[in-house]
């Protein structure tokens, strides 16, 4: 059974077919990358899968169940989580609290216990914070746990989003350009992190323009162009596909991709 699959999914914005009848399927535990030129529809595809947009056509299946047009919070409950290309940070909260919000579904949610701050709630708060700190440790932000998120530089905020998404203990994780704004070194760290995540059995769907990263860690790569599927294959197949080179990689990018694979 595939962890995530989409069939003939599509959406249009004022005449622009942002995503046009795209289908693919991601196996459990895979790292599945989606690449394509700017405006190809990658982020939109994520928005369709995660329920931020309602698809105009097609279906989304998560762990075998049809979740088309389900609300994001429902999808989260079913194990789907994501990060955003345009940062969506809780800027008025601390770094640790940002991650703690990610624990929301794991927490007891009755309003009355919360109002009276029952011991169970206190215990739970403590537990959530511990979990959050553990995740922050993992992405290297532990020393900023109690800083206001607004005070973090761009690159660190990208990582904070990953920690928050992980806090939901997802089965499928969508990452939208996690390495944007990171230098080669920092990208390597992210690469390790993604691999680790995948090793724990989480299915990762990755959108990224850093070809070194993509080529090295993807089990499969799906290429979009103008909202449609251009091709799908493993790294080797994709980077040598002349259409992909022409529309997306460019000669330099192709070289880079080739070097990454060595």
């Amino acid at each position, binding site marked *: 059974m595939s962890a995530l699959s989409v069939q003939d999914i599509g959406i249009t914005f004022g005449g622009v077919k942002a995503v046009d009848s795209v289908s693919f399927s991601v196996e459990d535990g895979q790292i599945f990358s989606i690449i394509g030129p700017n405006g190809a529809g990658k*982020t939109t595809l994520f*928005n369709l899968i995660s329920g*931020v947009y309602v698809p105009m056509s097609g279906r989304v299946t998560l762990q075998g169940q049809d979740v088309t047009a389900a609300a994001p919070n429902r999808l989260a409950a079913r194990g789907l989580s994501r990060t*955003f*290309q*345009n940062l*969506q940070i809780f800027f008025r909260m601390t770094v640790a609290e940002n991650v703690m919000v990610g624990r929301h579904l794991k927490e007891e949610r009755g309003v009355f216990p919360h109002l009276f701050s029952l011991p169970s709630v206190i215990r739970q708060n403590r537990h959530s914070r511990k979990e959050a700190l553990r995740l922050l440790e993992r992405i290297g932000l532990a020393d900023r746990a109690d800083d206001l998120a607004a005070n973090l530089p761009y690159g660190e905020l990208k990582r904070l989003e990953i920690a928050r998404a992980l806090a939901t203990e997802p089965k499928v994780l969508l990452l939208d350009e996690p390495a944007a704004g990171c230098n080669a070194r920092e990208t390597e760290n992210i690469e390790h992190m993604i691999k680790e995540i995948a090793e724990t059995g989480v299915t990762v769907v990755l959108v990224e323009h850093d070809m070194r990263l993509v080529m090295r860690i993807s089990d499969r790569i799906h290429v979009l162009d103008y909202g449609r599927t251009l091709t799908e294959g493993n790294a080797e197949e994709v980077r040598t596909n002349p259409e992909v080179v022409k529309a997306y990689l460019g000669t330099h990018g192709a070289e880079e991709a080739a070097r990454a694979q060595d």
Partner: protein
Amino acid sequence: MAEFLQFAFSGLTVGAVYALVALGFTLIYNASDVVNFAQGEFVMIGGMATVFIAAVGVPLPVAALSAIVVAMIVGLLLHRLAIEPARGADAVTLIIITIGASIFLRSAASFIFDKQFHTLPPFTGDTPILFGGAAILPQSLWVLAGGFVIVILLWAFMSRTILGKAILATAANRLAARLVGINTSYVVGLSFALSAAIGAIAGILVTPITLTRYDVGTLLALKGFAAAMFGGMGSPIGAIVGGLIIGLLEAFGAGYISSEYKDAIAFIVILGVLFFMPTGLFGRKSVERV
């Protein structure tokens, strides 16, 4: 039929007043995301200053022009002394500042002018014009025409001039506006001055019909705000349409349903429309990508 027309005339007259106030809101909002609750005070200043300047023997047109200038100065001062120093504060903080300003201006007006109601002579007499059995005051036509002219000018300014775009840009992203070289404080100041002028013109146009007093601003602000939101915040056309519709709803509500609940009728319709059009009639849906 005559009855219907009479209600319609009444609604359009009142609606035009709301529309003009809403236009003032729109302009400042477009420049700074601030809902200026002192907008009603500009309307009051327009009317009251004209009355009091005319009272010392100045010809009415001159008095009216001076009143517009007075309002613009007040608008600029408001920006300089209260809005600009709080630059960078939350929108709500700025809104509370405008509420403070409105209390302040109202009180100041009660000293500088007085606490009585005042009126101005209608521009072209007050012999009602009969149309299909219904009567409309010539002054109502002035108000409608004034609203029409101002909305056209404002629309052209916002969408046809680079300065107009700079105003929109400042509200959309102040940091970016500064980076492209927009003098944001000048632009916002300008919007306050223009908005004050629009308010003052509204005040002058409507005083012969609605009368004015130091504290008429509060309710005008309330209705104008509702009109601006109903039409879609930021849209000059929306402000006008929103204002006119609210005016018509009140008039028809009072005429056909219940005069006690006419305001309620207007608000129920607003709520109903917002339910289906969450950004008002002409408000653009914000596209914010994630």
